[in-house]
């Protein structure tokens, strides 16, 4: 891998981390609790980077995708349930991301939403059919990097830096009503889950296998996972910080995609607004493609079909049919008039159901010296892995009760 490939891979990971879930959860959490939830994004990003690096390493050394590990370690029955859950969530997430992309096209060009939903699906189908794995990853993620404007915005909007720094400490603020503690917990869970969506590890590990990773790619994997995810995390934190300045203590609870875009417009004007919209459009579209492919990877790996974007579509027909069907089902969901913001909320919160089954096999195999030889997790990564697995289990148990109790964060 040359330096250009390496640099693009790193940027792709950064651009790929931010998706519609950051536009739903980060501004709303900031509007209600200011900077006090910044730490939750940090926890989510570190957990996501840690497990992405592990699954990349397992793909490179043990030559196994995450779903192979689920099947092998959890047994066929649980693998089947995990498959059903992840397919359902992939369709839901794909619909949410594509719907968000359609809203961004509408914000850019002003045509009707229904027209833009149709347009985005034709574009996604064509791009996924004709582009290679690498081109898809780079094409969407590199342009998606315009969302870095949110991070630049932080310096212009002059936040209270002491309060920002305090927000990185996991300290629950004093809240006037006891019910608000549930809402606070709901957003903690939402922000952590948004970073840990399972499709990311399915896609990342299958991508590693597609690119025939070996031990030579371990440094690239390490820097892509940690560097890329941390840069993506900085963008997500940027959204939270500028949203706090704009909405917190002002009685505004943003519930729309364009709400998050007010901050770049407010600070920089039209050009920055359009570039940010373009960045988000590519980030959302890229995630829609990733979720469709991720569903096709998992189903093909479970069924033992030929799979991969490196094959021509007719070389892996069931794989190709699966991602096309996922895109079409997402189109059907959007045609029913469901709101992409609400879909995102459900997709993120319900995805936690698949967390424990997805992340445990990665950790167990990455710890296993028989499989991984000298590349198995050392003491520090093993300990961190179990700490984050504990967090994942707590999030999995509490997410849905909190969704119900807090009425989806609306109190």
């Amino acid at each position, binding site marked *: 891998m040359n330096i250009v490939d390496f640099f693009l891979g790193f940027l792709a990971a950064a651009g790929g981390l931010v998706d519609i879930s950051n536009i739903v959860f980060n501004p709303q959490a900031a509007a209600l609790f200011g900077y006090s939830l910044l730490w939750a994004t940090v926890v989510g990003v570190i957990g996501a980077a840690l497990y992405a690096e592990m699954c990349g390493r397992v793909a490179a050394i043990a030559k196994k995708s995450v779903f192979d590990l689920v099947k092998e370690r959890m047994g066929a029955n649980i693998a089947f349930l995990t498959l059903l*859950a992840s397919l359902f969530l992939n369709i839901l997430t794909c619909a949410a991301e594509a719907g968000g992309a359609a809203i961004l096209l509408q914000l850019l060009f002003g045509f009707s939403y229904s027209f833009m939903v149709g347009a985005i699906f034709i574009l996604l189908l064509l791009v996924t059919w004709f582009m290679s794995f690498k081109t898809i990853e780079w094409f969407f993620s590199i342009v998606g990097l315009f969302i870095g404007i949110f991070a630049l915005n932080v310096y212009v909007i002059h936040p209270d830096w002491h309060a920002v720094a305090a927000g990185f400490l996991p300290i629950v603020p004093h809240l006037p009503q006891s019910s608000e503690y549930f809402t606070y917990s709901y957003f903690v869970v939402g922000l952590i889950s948004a970073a840990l969506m399972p499709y990311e590890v399915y896609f990342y590990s299958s991508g590693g296998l597609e690119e025939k990773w070996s031990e030579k790619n371990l440094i690239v994997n390490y820097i892509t996972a940690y560097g890329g995810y941390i840069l993506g995390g900085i963008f997500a934190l940027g959204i939270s910080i500028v949203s706090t300045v704009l909405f917190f203590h002002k*009685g505004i609870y943003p519930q*729309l995609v364009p709400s998050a875009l007010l901050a770049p*417009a407010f600070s920089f004007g039209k050009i920055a607004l*359009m570039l940010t*919209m373009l960045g988000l459009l590519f980030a959302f579209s890229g995630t829609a493609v990733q979720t469709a492919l991720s569903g096709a990877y998992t189903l093909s790996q479970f069924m033992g079909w030929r799979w991969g974007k490196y094959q021509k579509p007719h070389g892996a027909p069931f794989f190709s049919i699966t991602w096309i069907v996922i895109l079409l089902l997402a189109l059907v969901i959007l045609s029913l008039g469901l709101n992409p913001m609400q879909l995102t909320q459900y997709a993120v919160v*319900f995805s936690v159901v698949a967390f424990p089954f997805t992340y445990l096999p990665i950790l167990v195999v990455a710890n296993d010296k028989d499989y991984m030889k000298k590349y198995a997790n050392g003491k520090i990564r093993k300990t961190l892995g179990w700490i984050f697995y504990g967090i994942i289990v707590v999030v999995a*148990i509490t997410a849905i009760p909190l*969704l*119900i109790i807090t009425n989806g964060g609306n109190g």
Partner: protein
Amino acid sequence: MNIKKLLFIIFVIGIVGGIISYLFYQQKQPLTKATLKKQMLTVESTLLEASLLTQVSYDGKTTAPYLKTYTQELAKQLQQSENLLRTAHPTPEIQQQTQHELQLISQARQTVQTLSDNPHNSVLIKKTQTKLVRKCKEQQSIITNL
């Protein structure tokens, strides 16, 4: 209990929780003082957001398609609140306030909708902003007196 069983139980809790949430999440509640106040705060948030948008737009920092789409969405939010209150059954003590609130939402929605139909008109943007600031104050005073 082994780890597989434990994880399976978490999985089942998740699925059952999901179904319960889907079935009961948005069930209608009778309109009480507390729910009316919550609805008023939602409307206030929408009005404040619309007011901020018009301020940024008047400064020439947004594009016409952005303003048009955003105001359309805000008008939809107001329409949802209006529909919710119109079909609700308020308790006798809050019937008058509910009617007053309905009037306020309807006027604000029309104001926002008018801007959505003419996003290029900077005079209209300014007028809309002034009207929205007035509506926000009116809404805050209704909330205080509830």
